[in-house]
């Protein structure tokens, strides 16, 4: 039986792992290759690396880093952050990434999703959505949460899947960094209505939050960063706990 997945996320800035709260206040959290390999050893099912470096040199640095990760990590990993063309993706996949994630660039140019899935296959195209609940619904935000749009998260996710996105990585900005639990309503709506896997992100604080997101929202995977980086929850403990709650886990 297919298991639910636990995915540590490593935000990368200038080659280091960093972690902010509500997309701000960035702190150093270690060497991404070491941390990635450690998580793999501890039983992480996949890894996500999001590059938030904003310099001109970033593309070259990122592909070199991806090669080092691929060399040392024996589980699948996704790379995201500022990817906006077929060429970007081609370089990263050739460097050893298993999947790439696109966010703002895909929203601004939805044809990119079609192009990427046609060129590389849906299985390696993850659509990342940052979303915030406002008034009546969940809306898409761009540029790392700085720019609001009038488009609803569910509508954009549905369109992107039709265009060939193979997975959705959904981050709730309301929940991110709060440690009060995942956004179960919007995660559930996507996970239960789209025929691609949905990765829930933002808000993990306790092991029960993972139970909720898998059992109530029926997410396919759950992503978290700081609770793993600062060892508030260890992956083996978490997986054991979830397994005891009848959630299928890989050991």
């Amino acid at each position, binding site marked *: 039986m297919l298991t639910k997945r636990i995915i540590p996320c490593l935000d990368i800035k200038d080659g280091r792992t960093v972690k902010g709260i509500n997309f701000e206040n960035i702190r150093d959290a270690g060497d991404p290759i070491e941390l990635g390999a450690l998580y793999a050893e501890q039983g992480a099912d996949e890894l996500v690396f999001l590059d938030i470096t904003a310099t001109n040199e970033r593309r070259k640095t990122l592909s070199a880093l991806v090669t080092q990760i691929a060399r040392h990590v*024996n*589980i*699948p990993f996704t790379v995201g952050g500022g990817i906006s063309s077929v060429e970007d993706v081609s370089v990263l996949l050739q460097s050893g990434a298993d999947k790439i994630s696109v966010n703002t660039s895909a929203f601004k140019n939805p044809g990119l999703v079609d192009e990427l899935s046609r060129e590389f296959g849906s*299985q*390696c195209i993850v659509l990342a959505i940052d979303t915030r609940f406002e008034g009546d619904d969940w809306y898409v935000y761009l540029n790392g949460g700085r720019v609001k749009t009038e488009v609803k998260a569910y509508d954009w996710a549905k369109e992107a899947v039709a265009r060939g996105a193979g997975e959705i990585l959904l981050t709730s900005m309301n929940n991110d960094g709060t440690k009060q639990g995942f956004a179960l309503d919007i995660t559930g709506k996507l996970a239960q209505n789209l025929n691609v896997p949905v990765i829930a992100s933002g808000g993990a604080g306790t092991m029960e939050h993972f139970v909720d997101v898998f059992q109530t929202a029926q997410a396919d995977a759950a992503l978290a960063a700081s609770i793993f980086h600062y060892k508030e929850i260890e992956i083996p403990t978490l997986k054991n706990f979830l397994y005891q709650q009848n959630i299928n886990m890989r050991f």
Partner: protein
Amino acid sequence: MKTVIVKYNAGNIRSVLFALERIGVTGIVTDNVEEIRAADKVIFPGVGEASTAMNYLKERKLDQVIKDLKQPVLGICLGMQLMCKHSEENDTECLGIFDSQVKRFESVAGLLKIPQIGWNNITNLHSSLFEHVPENSYMYFVHSYYAALGADTVAITNYVLNYSSALQKDNFYGVQFHPEKSATAGSRIIENFLNV
């Protein structure tokens, strides 16, 4: 020992090279016929689309070369599917090494997500590939098409239905999952293949 990875237009070659490197083996990536024939072990990887990959192999006459190999050959993911008889993916005639049909997962009442992405267990293991690999070990899968059960099935996985997660016939081995991405259990399978 010379381990060759067949170079063609279907990716994940880098990952296979690194997985070999982690167990101390240097793989050679090539589409040179003589080099492939002279290898001790041949790995035939693949992520991509069946008809495009088959056309590429045929244009370079690699289809016949692979079929005629006498040394151990390991097909991974699309590589394994191309070693079957026929694939529903764009109605593609494949190499016909394994006596299996490759079919598309059918969504059942909208509940089944396609592609299958993630870790699933392998059961009914009976091949030297699985020496010291426990029954029910988890492997990493990413695929929309599957090889049906048949005479060459040496591992079974369930995703709504039971299908072949590994096939073996004579010197030919195939795995639907990605051993190069399946942590230590996957690495063990690669080592086992290098030791057959």
